[in-house]
């Protein structure tokens, strides 16, 4: 599924460009309780994002790329889905991306791969 080439982004988002949610490009998004009837009522772009996030927990950038929905529109649509508790935006576990325990955990994981 790809985004409708004839629809302007602001039509999909109702003119909105921002969201309440803290959505970084690498923020993880998943669906805990999939609702097929709800999915069927969504616009194609939102439906694609919802179904993709249900299939596997992925980052905002992955969802955007795989569903062919631009990053800005993806953020707004995911924000809507999160506001109605349809998707789970994984909260940041650490206060800072420089948190030593996060850095140590990633370094340890990378060394295991090597």
């Amino acid at each position, binding site marked *: 599924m*790809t*985004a*409708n*080439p004839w*629809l*302007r*982004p*602001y039509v999909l988002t109702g003119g909105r*460009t*921002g969201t309440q949610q803290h959505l*970084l*490009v*690498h*923020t*993880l998004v*998943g*669906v*805990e*309780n*999939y*609702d*097929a*009837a*709800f999915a069927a009522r969504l616009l194609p772009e939102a439906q694609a994002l919802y179904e993709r996030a*249900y*299939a*596997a*927990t992925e*980052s905002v*950038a*992955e969802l955007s*790329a795989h569903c*062919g929905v*631009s*990053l*800005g*529109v993806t*953020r*707004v649509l995911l924000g809507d889905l999160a506001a109605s508790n349809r998707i*789970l935006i*994984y909260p*940041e*576990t*650490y206060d*800072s*991306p*420089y948190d*030593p325990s*996060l*850095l*140590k*955990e*990633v*370094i340890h*994981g*990378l*060394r*295991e*791969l*090597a």
Partner: protein
Amino acid sequence: MDFVSSPDGPPRRRTSAKIVVAGGFGVGKTTLVSAVSEIPPVNTEAWMTQASKTIDPLSAADDKTTTTVAMDFGRITLARHLVLYLFGTPGQARFWPMWDDLCRGASGALVLVDSRRLDVSFPAINYFENDSDVPFIIVVNLFDGVQTHSLEDIRDALELSGQVPLIAADARDRRSVIDSLTATLTHTMEVTAPGNRDAVTAR
């Protein structure tokens, strides 16, 4: 309403971290990401085509959120609950505002340089020196596995401050790339350690 549990398992603590991979056009960013990513780096061209279909670049309403990015990114699952993302910066000047967006929340940045064409990576180095608080290191890509200039000469040519680590790596080699990523995060730990005079805080 019928609810179906996610096949991905019950919710649990999940964390993602991000390293930004910057550098000029053709220095090997995509190669580096490909060497370690478990997913093929997202095809920039496909994303661009999509962007040009859905977004009119001449539109007056073309603000930050309607700008579509052209970048490669990769993913490395380090543990069931921990994913590392690598984001390559878009090289085109018109995507410059996206760098701030990509760098927000990054744990570190790796600026890749080609010793034969140092100038193409100058804008990326300037960005991390002047416009970003994200700790960064410079990685000289050993094209063909050959080091054509000494690291000291390259450091001088780049006019790098002594605090910025400079290492060499082969962007095609998985092991070498993993070492570069580890070096990037080790540098972040050092410069953000409590007591470090030049400690930085996340924006």
